[in-house]
């Protein structure tokens, strides 16, 4: 069976084409202002027998393509377990939310937590902070990784943290240390959620923010077990969605 898995997120749309359980192709596009046509382009790109959608836009896709849908939680669980059969938990920091998942047998979800209502600590948060610091996202992560000691940031609300950061910059504080402080604050919060769902290692760190080396370092040093980062951390959800077709 040829399956197209679509992960329609707030920042990007990711597609994975499977034949049986082998990945034949994958692609990533910006959600932009018209996620509908971006996903339609993927749908037309290659022949498939089934589509399964996940992510924020899954219900829209369901209507548009008459396909099935699964939540990101189930999709990330399946995708992570397929990439790393030894995985016991998953952390996904995406554009607008963070999920932590504790896994049982064969990628089955045992417990999970999602950040509620706000963008604190997500990709979006990092973008806003990079702008406030006058760095590109990549530079900010690099600087944060190199800085020795972070400056503590007290608020994780995107709006408050932004003014806090602006204030620190105006006071002439070292921007690299502010960047590190921001990363530390996110890591601390994330490690707290991992504890609450009783996450054990190995932990699969997926989602767009897993491409940020400073975050990977901080999570790896704070987490009790091994941390694994997939090569294509962004497509784990689409991959898992495609794999869920076999479970139906």
């Amino acid at each position, binding site marked *: 069976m040829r399956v197209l898995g679509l992960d329609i997120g707030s920042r990007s749309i990711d597609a994975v084409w499977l034949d049986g359980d082998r990945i034949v192709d994958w692609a990533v596009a910006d959600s932009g202002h018209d996620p509908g046509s971006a996903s339609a382009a993927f749908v037309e790109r290659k022949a498939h027998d089934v589509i399964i959608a996940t992510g924020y836009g899954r219900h829209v896709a369901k209507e548009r393509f008459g396909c099935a849908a699964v*939540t990101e939680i*189930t999709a990330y669980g399946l995708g992570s377990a397929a990439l790393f059969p030894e995985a016991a938990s998953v952390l996904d920091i995406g554009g607008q939310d963070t999920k932590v998942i504790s896994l049982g047998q064969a990628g089955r979800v*045992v417990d999970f937590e*999602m950040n*509620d*209502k706000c963008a604190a600590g997500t990709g979006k948060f990092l973008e806003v902070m990079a702008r406030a610091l006058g760095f590109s996202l990549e530079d900010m992560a690099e600087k944060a990784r190199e800085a020795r000691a972070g400056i503590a940031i007290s608020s994780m609300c995107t709006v408050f943290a932004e003014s806090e950061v602006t204030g620190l910059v105006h006071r002439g504080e070292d921007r690299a240390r502010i960047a590190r402080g921001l990363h530390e604050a996110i890591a601390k919060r994330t490690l707290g959620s991992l504890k609450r769902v009783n996450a054990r290692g190995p932990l699969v760190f997926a989602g767009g923010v897993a491409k940020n080396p400073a975050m990977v370092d901080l999570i790896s040093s704070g987490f009790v077990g091994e941390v694994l980062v997939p090569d294509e951390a962004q497509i784990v959800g689409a991959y898992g969605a495609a794999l869920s077709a076999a479970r139906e």
Partner: protein
Amino acid sequence: MSDQAVDYHPMWDELGLDLPTHDALLEAVGQLFGDAYLTQENRPTGMDYLNFVMSEVHGLRIKELDDFRKSGGKVFGTFCLYVPEEIIRAAGAWSVGLCAGAEFAYDEVEQIMPRNTCALIKSFMGFKLAKVCPYIESSDLVIGETTCDGKKKAYELLGEIHDTWVMELPQMKRPEDIAMWKAEVRELVKKAEEITGNTITEDSLRAAIKEVNDKRRALQRIAAASAADPAPISGKDRLLATQVAFYDDVPRFTQMMNTLADELEARVAAGEGVAPRGAKRVLVTGTPMALPNWKIHDIIEKAGAVVVGEEMCTGSRYYQDLVPEDGSTLDEMIDAVAEKYLDINCACFTPNKGRIDDVIRMAKDLGADGVIDLSLQFCGLYEMESHGVEEAVRAAGLPVLKITTDYSMEDVGQLSTRVEAFLEML
């Protein structure tokens, strides 16, 4: 929200409602009801009665209260399960549960209460301050109780603008607490007699006990039928039945609910249901869902599962126990009423192990695949108790999802994803 064959505006005006604001509220509730209820498929025909009641929620029923009061009757408004309806009815008065299930006039409320007060309290205060609740305006007396700290203090504020009487509820269930509560129920007897000018007699209390038990028995039948797979009634519809139980005319409601139960039992026998056989089954537990709060049930059932029970005050806590009907003297009957009420397992008691036992027993009896534990944000009691519920449910081998929310619709998207993910893991 009715098609308004009768214009109730003069009556609402007389009650002192703020008409434009009230019209806006009715419209909002009508819309909510339409979205959550009238979109359901395969509803039992017995639900027509409740649809009608809802369409006349501020109309015909208020007219009945109005007529009753104009003929000398008294209406008592209550907020909590612990206020014994039997005593009120035995004095010839009617009891109405005051709804507090929608976000309304919070800006006014927050002038006199902290923002981090639970939605239930903010809501009832908002309804009162904005003058949109005909039930509270029809209440000759509001009876409060010292359950949680928030309500205790809120009744002081309410007392400044509405006649309010507060019952002292113990926080433990030791013999001395039971004795204290019995004395407190006797104070209510006196108060009810004083306000109505009627005397509570053996006969009137016996009849009231029987009447209210009959109402609970009808609801028990509906709950029992919900154990079948496929479920013969949606959780939303059963929740509505319990919500309406708090303010509808007792004998009429009982009769209509027995008719509904007959239909559900026939459906069970025929293997008919509202959701396909094998649909995921969820037990919901936690803080009460006052009318018109259907948020969590709506999310769960729109995600394809069916809610098979509510371990909450708008659920089993309301109807699972009956007052023994064999008391021969007035004293025995009052004691029996007091004892039954103290058996309710609310988180305001310590310890409250009985609630956890109820959750586990109901999950088994109703064939639940998972439990969703709901707390209203800022309700310290249920939020704190949530951990114990979670552990016990897991120990019983069932998955559990803890949700903390309020009445706003802001988090519906997030909650839907969480609920869907939870259903996928069942």
